[in-house]
């Protein structure tokens, strides 16, 4: 970490850059922003935005179960709960005729209600509100190490399974005809999502984690014309809004996660306008 601190001191000699917590937070943002952007491209393409929202909210149930079991660090129970949820949703999708949204709605209601019921015993919910809005400024070097591991796991997964995920998102029968094991693929993707969301929920919070996944990809989609541009622009938007939001939150004294989301929304609005201009130009030249 000391090398990173020296680098920030050298390259970013600003007021906000002198604090260790800001240097840590900046590194955390630089690591998780591309991960969120890349996973978000598939979340948006597969219309899984509600699923990831449910995943985020399932953190409450995970924390509650951790409290009941007397576990100090709730990350373990949160990940376990989210992975179980991810697998169950995939299994239920195949078993029930109800729409996926309905199944997800039932899971979300159960997870949130279970979490709040347990955590609110004797008026104790206030101490858990930090999980709702998150605090990336409190990120520890140990957590950053985990985020870096997560970054490389996602990178390797995307290299190995990216094409299969793309083909499955286009047509699952077509993917099966190419001998892709669709259930295993979709389940592994949702498990990966569950782990990523849970590892970073303390940093960005239950309420806005979904926005960080969805907005960069949604913005990129407004003008990208192929998969490479889609991924690249999602990463660019995610990094831009992440860094800008972090710095702005320092000067404004606001919650970092929410400020980052505001910048992401700005990117989305910009992309809508840019997309319209681009499609207009293409029609004119075509």
């Amino acid at each position, binding site marked *: 970490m000391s090398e990173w601190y020296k680098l920030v001191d050298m390259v970013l000699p600003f007021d906000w850059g002198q604090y260790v917590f800001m240097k840590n937070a900046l590194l955390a943002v630089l690591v998780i922003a591309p991960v969120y952007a890349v996973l978000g491209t598939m979340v948006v393409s597969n219309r899984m935005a509600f699923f990831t929202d449910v995943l985020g909210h399932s953190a409450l149930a995970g924390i509650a179960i951790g409290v009941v079991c007397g576990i100090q660090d709730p990350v373990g129970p949160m990940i376990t709960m989210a992975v179980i949820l991810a697998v169950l949703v995939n299994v239920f999708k195949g078993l029930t005729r109800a729409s996926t949204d309905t199944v997800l709605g039932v899971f979300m209601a159960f997870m949130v209600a279970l979490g709040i019921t347990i955590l609110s015993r004797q008026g104790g919910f206030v101490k858990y509100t930090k999980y709702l809005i998150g605090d990336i400024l409190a990120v520890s070097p140990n957590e950053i190490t985990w985020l870096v591991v997560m970054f490389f796991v996602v990178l390797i997964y995307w290299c190995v399974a990216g094409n299969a995920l*793309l*083909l499955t998102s286009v047509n699952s029968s077509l993917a099966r*005809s*190419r001998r892709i094991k669709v259930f295993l693929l979709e389940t592994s993707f949702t498990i990966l999502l569950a782990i990523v969301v849970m590892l970073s929920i303390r940093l960005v919070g239950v309420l806005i984690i979904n926005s960080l996944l969805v907005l960069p990809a949604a913005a990129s989609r407004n003008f990208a*014309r*192929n998969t*490479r*541009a889609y991924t690249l622009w999602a990463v660019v938007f995610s990094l831009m809004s992440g860094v800008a939001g972090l710095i702005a939150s320092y000067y404004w004294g606001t919650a970092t996660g929410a400020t980052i989301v505001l910048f992401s929304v700005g990117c989305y609005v910009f992309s809508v306008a840019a997309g319209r201009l681009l499609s207009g130009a293409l029609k004119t030249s075509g």
Partner: protein
Amino acid sequence: MLSQNNPSSVVAGDSCRHCCIRIQDLTVCLGGNTILNGVNLHVHCGDVLAIVGPNGAGKTTLLRAILGEVPYRGSLSSLIGGVERRRPRIGYVPQKLHFDPDSPVSVADLVMAATSRRPVWWGIGNQALARVKAILKVFAADNLVARRVGELSGGELQRVLLAIAMTAEPELLLLDEPSSGVDVKGLELFYQLVRDLKKQHDISVILVTHDVAGILAYVDRIVLLDHSIITESSPKEFLSDVRGS
């Protein structure tokens, strides 16, 4: 045989082999209902078999069973050069794609995702692009390489999907309602390509359609399906049966 690495073999192909696809006593029960009951089909290589029938007759379920998407009783096997295999290599051309037309997926992305391990999101190099174009050229679709998949007409999409299906070096080609959303000219070109393929590659083709009139000139046999096989006849016999009734 087609070669994934050598798209030119899509037109080169092997000479005729003694082979066939056999579906024996195929039965599918879903949710307590018998959708297909004791279906027997024998498709020789180089034959195009059309499956027609009313809505809800089990046509799509038959394709899903062949693709291994629904559980079934019975067997599906291929006989190639005297060697029997339990699961033939299948090329599948779906009726439509279940995705947003605005999706940022180009035709080159789709072909690469289906035929290569190199991650598409990393970008497509010149060499890979040349290979994609060669695959598409056989199906008069190389000019579509940079287009978004959602922008293609029905006929263009069918040709791209056919090109992708053929890279799997299939022993059995499944075509699901190819006439859906395709104009007459596009459909004619599509069926001509299928006819060329079956001649050059000696593959078995099963075509599910409700457009009986449009396929008569291109198929070898027509099966009327309504949960089980009602009739199996040549196009000529099918036509005279229809006129007679």
